């Protein structure tokens, strides 16, 4: 089990219909074909069960953004809100986005380290669709995509990892080199530019052409395991050599999150990271899935949906603090 370090696994496939231009955002007739053809193909293949169709233009701004915050749809899809839609099977987090940079982005998210299961879920949808429709495919170049960085498998496999001790030990430079050495990519998930708020990083494959999906997944998984081992070794060391400073850090985070009445997002990430570290190391008796779910639920759009009103400034920070206390069982 790698859930002490890996938050979730995601696989995404880019697919395009061979008879339609890639960019359908200002071509409503093509955008409509993308949606209806996909919906019909899933139905004809008998795999439509559990999928619900969301047209972004028919949804509130907050609902769309909340879906992006949960990563059920991409932030890029929000940029095409007028024409884009998504088929979402909520129970196992499988999404078919329509009208993003590519016609289809088939995506599956799994908790913890489980890229293979996420990939299988995507492949089942891909296989079902490909027997009904013609995807743009070239024997030499594989699946043809709007951007040449996705050509070939069209697959991006990524792991969301919590690496607080590696970050604290200033080892992320070394990690970056290690990641690049095996041809992968690493970036901070939350924050601007080179920030990695909450010490959350995403590793993913950089190349998509010339390797099998299996090879790409194995490479990402192997590196994920290696980073888990590096992070856990530092955690073990901290436990043995600096238990009191470690406990102090964790329980201060617990104190802040269970008592604060206003919680800015940037401050949240800092406490959350220490809270999750303490939970993963067994210092706090909290269910990890709840701790991980907090990441979505404290985001702006999630809070607006939860409060059923538009929130900004101090009111938003107050709602966040309340939501956190509620999730940590402190409001009963």
């Amino acid at each position, binding site marked *: 089990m790698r859930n002490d370090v890996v938050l979730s696994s995601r696989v995404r496939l880019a697919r395009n219909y061979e008879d339609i231009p890639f960019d359908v955002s200002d071509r409503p007739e093509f955008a409509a074909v993308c949606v209806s053809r996909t919906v019909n193909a899933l139905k004809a293949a008998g795999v439509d069960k559990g999928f619900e169709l969301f047209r972004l233009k028919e949804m509130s701004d907050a609902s769309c953004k909340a879906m992006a915050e949960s990563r059920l749809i991409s932030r890029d899809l929000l940029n095409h809100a007028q024409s884009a839609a998504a088929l979402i099977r909520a129970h196992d987090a499988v999404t078919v986005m329509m009208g993003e940079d590519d016609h289809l982005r088939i995506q599956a998210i799994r908790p913890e380290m489980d890229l293979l299961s996420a990939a299988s879920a995507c*492949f089942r949808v891909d296989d079902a669709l490909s027997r009904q429709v013609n995807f743009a495919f070239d024997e030499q170049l594989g699946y043809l995509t709007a951007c*040449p960085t996705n050509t*070939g498998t069209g697959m991006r496999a990524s792991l969301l990892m919590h690496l607080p001790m590696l970050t604290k030990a200033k080892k992320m430079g070394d990690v970056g080199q290690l990641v690049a050495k095996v041809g992968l990519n690493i970036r901070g998930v939350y924050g601007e530019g080179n920030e990695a708020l909450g010490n959350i990083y995403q590793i993913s494959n950089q190349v998509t052409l010339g390797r099998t999906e299996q090879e790409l997944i194995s490479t990402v998984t192997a590196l994920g395991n290696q980073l888990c081992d590096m992070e856990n070794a530092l955690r073990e060391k901290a436990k043995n050599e600096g238990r009191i400073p470690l406990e102090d850090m964790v329980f201060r985070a617990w104190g802040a999150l269970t008592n604060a009445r206003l919680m800015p997002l940037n401050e949240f990430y800092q406490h959350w990271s220490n809270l999750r570290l303490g939970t993963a190391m067994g210092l706090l008796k909290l269910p990890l899935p709840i701790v991980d779910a907090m990441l979505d639920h404290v985001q702006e759009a999630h809070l607006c949906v939860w409060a059923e009103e538009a929130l900004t400034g101090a009111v938003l920070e107050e709602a966040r603090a309340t939501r956190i206390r509620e999730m940590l069982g402190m409001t009963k």
Partner: protein
Amino acid sequence: MAENENGFGLCEECGVNEACYTISVMMGGQITQRHLCADCMAKMNMNLAAGNVKHLLSAIMSAITGGVEEAAAAIAEEGGEAASIVCERCGTSLSKFTKSGKLGCPSCYQAFREQLTPMLQQIHGRVQHAGRKPLDDEGAQRRRAVYDRLSRQLEQAVAMEDFETAAVLRDQLKQLSNAEGGENHA
């Protein structure tokens, strides 16, 4: 080059600030290390995070042609032969593609094949697809389902350190791959 406390010297992107980050760029299967300052690193991360590959592509084009501007000038001198290549199906021109980083339609791959192939080689290191293919018959789908199931069992067996079962599963997977006549699975 004068080295700072990180041993990097000046940022290789802007040449003004001191570099404090090392990034490794995969180009044509070769890893090239670059040293960047915080500002340029932030810009690069933003571009990657936003999926904005325009800069990446122009860097690649410049690596291929020795400078986009020089290439454009050279093309202009030749009577704009390359720049005027247009995908007949969607009307996207080669110059529009190099500016936006996005192709117009699947046929663009054919129209710009000569220019795209070295670019794909730079990005991916290889230009022969090895992955999955669209399914055309039920038999292939069934075989793939079996393959997926066996792969999962294999992962579980390895995780449980049941290497005996893992060896058997590996053999079965191999047989299945061979029976497919070299078709790739994942």
